[in-house]
């Protein structure tokens, strides 16, 4: 069971206080979008072994959403950051690149 730090209220708590919300930084495609774009938005999700950017909600706490960068293999948590952003912060990316030299950043998070 993980321990995460809510970026909104700063509380560090065990996983039972949180709710996982899947892959972060999806771009919404609405009416007028192509079938491929819409399919990608609605159904296609990354499932990497290693560095992953996720959405979490502090459901039993302040109720706010936030983002977490995490290694799905080792469960190492690189950091939490605001839900109100389209990309992870640069210092977090730098930290991950430092710890995971083989990791390459996916276009969606760039």
């Amino acid at each position: 069971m993980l321990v995460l730090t809510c970026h909104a209220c700063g509380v560090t708590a065990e996983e039972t206080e949180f709710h996982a919300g899947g892959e972060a930084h999806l771009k919404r495609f609405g009416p007028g979008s192509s079938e491929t774009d819409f399919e990608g938005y609605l159904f296609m999700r990354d499932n990497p072994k290693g560095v992953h950017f996720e959405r979490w909600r502090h459901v039993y706490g302040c109720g706010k959403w936030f983002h977490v960068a995490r290694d799905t293999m080792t469960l190492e948590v690189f950091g939490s950051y605001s839900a109100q952003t389209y990309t992870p912060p640069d210092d977090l990316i730098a930290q991950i690149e430092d710890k995971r030299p083989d990791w390459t950043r996916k276009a969606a998070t760039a």
Partner: protein
Amino acid sequence: MSEPVTALNNTSDATGIAAVSEIGPVGMITLRGDLNASYLRKAAAQIAGVDVPAPLGCNSSDNRGIAWMSPDELLVMCPYAEAGETVEKLEKAIGSNFATAANVSDGRAVFRVSGPLAREVMAKLSPVDLDPAIFKPGMFRRTRLAQVPAAFWMTDDETFQIFCFRSVAQYVFDVLKVAAQSGSAVGHFPLAEGQSANT
């Protein structure tokens, strides 16, 4: 209008290692908005008679207070009978600014757990570090109490005030009673000087 009735009619139990009682009714107003905005801070402080607390805190004085709920939400406490007019006052003070005040006094139940072992009772139900060096009077924490969402506020060294939804009041009271059952003292937290406890 009738006399207000709390969810459990102020029931209480003192047979265990800490006393558990439903208190209230308590006037409670959800205030959402920009917590850094002076119009909001002033309005809340004026009505509650205390300053807007820092994150994860609660300021109080007599029967009024302000608890920090989230980065854009406060819980303003006042006497139950004044809740309606307090909402109106807040709305007036906020004016055309973007903020929302709503009376939630009836939607919640409030409990008090008190005694030297109150920390232990709470630590049985909530995944929160309640070591006296970490969690101190004046702190306010929203979390999980067994299977339901709840918030608790330490009003002094041996008292917790617990807020939960009204519909689960019976569950919360019962589960607090189980956690406080006699013979269940854990002995995990150091007692403050001069404190002694029923175990």
